[in-house]
């Protein structure tokens, strides 16, 4: 650590910046909010599997185990492969849902996050062709939460500790690591999506919003777009502009919280416009800890 007798440099070194960014103790409350929302998102996504679970993964299902295995990349594996009877598939899925419930209510939070992340990854590997952007983001969110003490506030864990007379830490360096990982992923996912989008002409000529609106599950604004081409162009360019602003502004303290608050509304809106509302919700969850940045400074 810093030697007291040595005068500190005016400009912080790369090492100092790294240590400050990743290890300055941060409050656990933003992480707790992200945990609750992630758990709820996970339950919604699990619900979308539940009704057709056996039709997909049961014996003689649409996605047989041997076919799923042949599609996986090397190192891909799924605990669901071991489930061959309907009862076993349902039990495995029940375990996944239970882990997500535990994450939501904050029961054994860190362990629950790890278990939920492992089981969720297994479920996705069992049928990779069914996976959408929201599923990917949920996986990332669960791993990020597992790093920090996400159950130290607003959780069953905190309540149990309080009853037992123990006090859980409300600031932690691990919370900061978790916060940092969420921030990095929010920026990287947005940049990667942006780079993929701008390869298409429709994002340049301003007509992407038209094609998005025609997708099932999207808000159909085509009647409005027919009235004004400028409106169509504006919506298309606004999506791109927001993504650029979000990916970049998160890295600057003066703009971080403001853009995160905008993102809490904008990401779900983009998701609904694109027919991927749960992906929009997942991206908003990445922004939650940054939106609560003032708690960190307090």
């Amino acid at each position, binding site marked *: 650590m810093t030697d*007291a007798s040595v005068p500190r440099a005016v400009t912080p070194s790369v090492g100092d910046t790294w240590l400050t960014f990743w290890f300055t103790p941060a409050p656990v409350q933003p992480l707790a909010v992200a945990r609750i929302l992630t758990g709820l998102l996970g339950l919604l996504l699990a619900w979308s599997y539940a009704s057709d679970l056996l039709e997909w993964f049961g014996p*003689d299902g649409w996605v047989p185990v041997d076919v799923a295995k*042949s599609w996986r990349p090397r190192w*891909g594996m799924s605990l669901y492969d071991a489930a061959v009877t309907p009862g076993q598939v349902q039990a495995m899925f029940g375990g996944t849902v239970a882990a997500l419930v535990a994450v939501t209510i904050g029961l054994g939070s860190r362990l629950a996050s790890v278990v939920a992340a*492992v089981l969720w*990854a297994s479920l996705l590997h069992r049928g990779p062709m069914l996976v959408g952007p929201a599923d990917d983001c949920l996986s990332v969110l669960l791993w990020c939460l597992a790093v920090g003490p996400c159950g130290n506030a607003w959780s069953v864990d905190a309540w149990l500790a309080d009853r037992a007379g123990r006090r859980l830490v*409300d600031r932690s360096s691990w919370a900061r690591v978790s916060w940092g990982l969420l921030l990095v992923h929010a920026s990287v996912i947005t940049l990667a999506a942006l780079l*993929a989008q701008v390869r*298409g002409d429709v994002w340049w000529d301003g007509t992407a919003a038209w*094609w998005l609106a025609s997708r099932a599950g999207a808000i159909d604004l085509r009647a409005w777009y027919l009235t004004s081409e400028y409106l169509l162009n504006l919506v298309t360019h606004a999506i791109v502009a927001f993504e650029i602003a979000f990916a970049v502004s998160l890295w600057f303290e003066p703009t971080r919280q403001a853009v995160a608050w905008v993102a809490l509304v904008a990401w779900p809106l983009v998701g609904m416009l694109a027919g991927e509302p749960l992906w929009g919700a997942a991206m908003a969850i990445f922004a939650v800890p940054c939106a609560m940045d003032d708690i960190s400074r307090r």
Partner: protein
Amino acid sequence: MVVVPEGRWGPGGLIDGSLRAEAEASQTTVSGAGGHVNARSLRGPGNPGETLWRRLRGRITLGGVTPAEPRSDDAPRADRPSEAVCAAVTIALAAYLIGLVLAVATNSLGGSSPLLGTIKSRVFSPVLVPAWLDLGYDYRLTYGGLEDADHDLTIAAHDDASAAVERPGDRRGERAARWRRLARTIASGNFDEDGSVVAAGAARGGFRLLQVGDVEITVDRLQPPERNASTLDATRQEASTARIRRVEGDVQLIRKEPPSELAPRLRPAAPPRSSPEATP
């Protein structure tokens, strides 16, 4: 007003040493009630920075001036992990961030270089792939092309088209989206060259549902209209059709080319009309 500088409360750092340095710089004097004060000995449970400050207040003055409340970003520093832990976590974080960049670079729509692909597969894939973190995040949303249109699929008994199941049917939301992804995979062959493996696998579900061993699986593409079209209704196009049957336990797939991909039918050239002049 003197502010206790950030970075002087780290584990092992001597509070009185840092204060003395500060005092010398500002030509003030330090008086401490307890003399030598070690930061580590003052760390407590809960919020160590605040605890430390509470214990220090009133015991140390700078030239008769009580130091101001520490800045909010000073306090947390006391809770940083040890150097060894920081170093270990730093290595883990750096490794993961490299893996993240490689995952994005090698899973992009534009393909990947053999060099990056080899590095990723040898070093990072054993961790990233099982955890479902080997992702490109290339969510383009739309390019307005055929592959971005909604797809649905129908499985019918080969000899009885009235016995058919449609997916997603009346399903909605993410549940319907999963069936559309399956249909798109069969049509576009994202996982294999022409989607045959997926189609053959999906047909097994059709065998069970329809109680037959010979089915026809059809994927329709719902191509949305251009903005200047006269209607907002999507055009239904057949994107992929295959007959799949079970013969003595083996699954056979006979792919049918959709009409849109067949070469146009050539009309036989009309025989040259004999000109009246040529008629004898």
